[in-house]
Structures are given as structure tokens and as C-alpha cells.
């Protein structure tokens, strides 16, 4: 009850956990600060030079007491550490299976959001209440940081690397979105709004093609990816039995044998690399003839292509990019069961 009054702003599944730890740390801090300051004040008054108090038997060391303090503080520290490690590992770890994946691209100085169904938003993010959402973030240029204070959630947006974070919005409203990592001249204007809506309203918003946002309804990410796939002529080599390049059906999350003798799991990060720098990732039996797309595709288009390639897999694997280097589905359910 008290906690609800103190921390009325918690707007995500993570926020109450943050609040708990913040509350405990604040209690500890106040306790120790008051302890130290009051001891100093008491000693300063009692033992001021003019005072005639008894100063007999001054002590200059007490090893037992010191070790007691060291032990006590270490235990307190370890306790807080373990308590605070779990929520952290949770939100940066594998999301529940039903999590909605939303792609966030940071660039100087705006946020580009892609919903899987093709709705794109700039500097705005609409979310349904109560549904787990996993953000998959990548930067087009420098390091940014996706920060929604009301959710107490922050994740750096790094170029060349997918990061992820997941949470459940638990409160309807409009919340500020900041870039928290200094990214250049207009860093302080790389802001936006996150809107959390009732699932019903969200469905309406989605159906209207995100009419409240600037982007409007485009094709879904898979469709956009397919269009790119055709536009760049990928199909001429990766089409069925051309022999020039491997087929992409059922590629996602499969094992790829490369000409240099190593193997790789074809996760999001691998596919991204294979599109942008194909010469380093040549599968066995093929020539390194694929064009380098590094300067032709932006991160958003790469995400579209990955979505399309995923759609070519017969079994859909609910795997998040950030954790896809390892396996496997099924365990996600457990995570969900325990944390939610």
C-alpha cells in the first residue's frame, strides 16, 4: 500500500521491481547517512575541545569490530546484489513466447520504430496494455540509448549489434521517450512519446494503419522484405535451384557450414552480417560472388529482409535475436510462467 503511494508512476512490469530496490537502497542510504552524520555531530559536540568530559582510556583500534563491520557490509552488499540481479537478467534475457517484437532503429537524431505488421512510427511508439513487448534495437550511426523513465527501462542502441529488452506496459498513458546516451548536436531533441493504449484501442489503431502516427500503414515487414528481395535481384541467385547461391527456405536458425571450415547458426545477427558483408560468410559449395550491401541497405531494410527470410522457414521459431546464438524454444514458456 505504502509503496503504491510512494511510487505511483510504475508503468511497466519492470518498474515495481526497480522501485523495490530503489526503496531498499534509499532506506539503507538514509540509515547509514543519518548514522554517520549523527555520530559526527554527537562526537563533535561531546568531545569539543572546550568540553570537560571524561576522555579516559581512548581506544585506537579494534580489529574485531572492524572485521564485524566488513563482514556485515559485505553480507548486505551481496544481498542487494542478488536481489537486483534477477530483474536485470530477466528484461535483458529471453522474452515470453507471446511477446510482441518491435524493432527500434536509432539514428542521429530520431527514433524509427517498425512494427512487424508494417506500421512505422517516428519518435513515437504505440503499445497495447498488458502484452509483453520485446524491443530489438540497433543503431544506424552512433551509440544511442532508448530510455522511457516511466517504464524504468533503458537499453543502449549500438551500431552493428542487436540489443534487446522486454517488458509489459502496465499503465495507460503517454510517456516520455529519451535518448540517454550522448549522440551529438541534437542529443537532447532525440525524444518522443510512448503511448500505451487499451488492447481494444490498440487494435483499432493498428487497423487504422497507425493513423495517429506519422508513418501510416505500409506493407508488413515481411512484405517489405520481399519487395526488397526482388528489387535487389536476390531471387536471381537465391531462387530455387539456381545453384549459384544457397536456397533461403528453412535457413533461419539452421546450421550453416562455411567455406572456412567453421559453422554458424543462422540467427538474426548472422543473417545481417551475411547480407551486409557476404564475403566473410561463404557457405560451403558456393563462390563468394554476392554483392556487398553495406552501403545500399539501411538497418530498417535489413530488418525487413530478415523478417522475410524468417517467413521462408516452415516452422516458426519464437527466438529473439539477442539470445538466438543459443537455444531453444519451449524454455521461454518457463520464463514467462515464473516472471509474470
Amino acid at each position: 500500500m505504502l509503496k503504491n503511494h510512494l511510487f505511483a508512476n510504475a508503468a511497466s512490469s519492470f518498474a515495481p521491481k526497480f522501485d523495490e530496490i530503489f526503496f531498499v537502497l534509499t532506506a539503507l542510504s538514509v540509515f547509514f547517512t543519518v548514522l554517520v552524520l549523527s555520530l559526527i555531530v554527537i562526537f563533535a559536540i561531546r568531545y569539543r575541545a572546550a568540553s570537560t568530559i571524561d576522555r579516559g582510556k581512548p581506544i585506537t583500534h579494534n580489529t574485531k569490530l572492524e572485521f564485524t563491520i566488513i563482514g556485515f557490509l559485505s553480507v548486505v552488499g551481496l544481498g542487494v546484489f542478488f536481489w537486483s540481479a534477477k530483474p536485470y537478467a530477466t528484461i535483458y534475457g529471453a522474452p515470453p513466447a507471446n511477446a510482441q517484437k518491435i524493432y527500434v532503429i536509432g539514428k542521429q537524431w530520431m527514433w524509427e520504430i517498425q512494427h512487424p505488421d508494417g506500421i512505422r512510427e517516428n519518435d513515437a511508439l504505440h503499445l497495447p496494455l498488458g502484452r509483453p513487448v520485446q524491443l530489438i534495437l540497433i543503431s544506424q550511426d552512433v551509440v544511442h540509448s532508448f530510455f522511457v523513465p516511466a517504464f524504468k527501462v533503458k537499453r543502449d542502441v549500438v551500431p552493428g549489434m542487436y540489443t534487446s529488452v522486454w517488458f509489459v506496459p502496465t499503465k495507460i498513458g503517454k510517456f516520455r521517450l529519451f535518448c540517454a546516451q550522448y549522440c551529438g548536436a541534437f542529443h537532447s531533441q532525440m525524444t518522443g512519446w510512448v503511448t500505451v493504449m487499451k488492447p481494444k484501442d490498440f487494435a483499432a489503431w493498428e487497423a487504422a494503419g497507425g493513423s495517429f502516427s506519422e508513418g501510416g500503414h505500409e506493407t508488413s515487414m515481411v512484405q517489405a522484405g520481399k519487395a526488397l528481395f526482388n528489387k535487389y535481384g536476390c531471387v536471381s541467385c537465391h531462387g530455387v535451384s539456381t545453384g549459384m547461391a544457397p536456397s533461403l527456405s528453412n535457413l533461419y536458425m539452421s546450421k550453416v557450414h562455411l567455406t572456412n571450415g567453421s559453422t554458424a547458426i543462422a540467427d538474426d545477427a548472422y543473417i545481417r552480417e551475411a547480407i551486409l558483408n557476404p564475403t566473410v560468410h561463404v557457405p560451403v559449395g558456393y563462390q563468394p560472388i554476392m554483392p556487398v550491401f553495406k552501403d545500399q541497405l539501411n538497418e530498417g531494410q535489413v530488418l525487413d529482409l530478415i523478417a522475410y527470410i524468417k517467413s521462408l522457414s516452415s516452422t516458426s521459431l519464437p527466438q529473439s535475436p539477442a539470445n538466438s546464438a543459443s537455444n531453444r524454444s519451449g524454455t521461454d514458456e518457463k520464463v514467462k510462467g515464473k516472471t509474470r
Partner: protein
Amino acid sequence: MDTHHITPISVYVKVYVILMLLLFATWAISRIQLGPWNNVAAMTIAIIKATLVFLFFMGVKYSSKLTWVWATAGFLWLLVLFGVLIDYMSRGWIPVKGW
């Protein structure tokens, strides 16, 4: 009185011969395919060579304890810096289930 150790020339020459033999060994082993053991062998030989230079050419073997401490401090601290690798090696791991 000043007591400063002077290493005799014969020691230097012996160490030098061993170093050259080890150099040849490194090169020879690198020509054989041993898989990951190639790395182990190369680095082990490098560490032995460096230790020989360290102990005899640089005279740490005959030095005071204080010199020992500071001579090894840098090498030990390099290991701490290699803690950076923990980050890269554990990135792919999934966080513990149930956490």
C-alpha cells in the same frame, strides 16, 4: 659497500642458445597441424622465452624482492585487463532460466 651482481658471460650465452633453439621449435611446431594445440604450444614457448629473458638477461633472478614485485606486477595486471574477454565469451550465453 656496493654489492651488485654481475652475471657471467657464459650464462648469457647459454640462455641465448636455448632461446634460439626455442625459436626454431616454435617455427617447426607451427608447420605441423595440431589444431588448437598449435596455439598452446606457440604461447607456451613464447612464455618460456620471455621468462628466460626476464630472469637472466634482465637479471630479475638476482634482484631484490622489491624489484621482483614491480617486475611481475605489470605482467599480473595484464591478466586483469584480459578480463575484458569475459564479456565477449559470455555474450552468446542465455541468461539463467527462471531469473
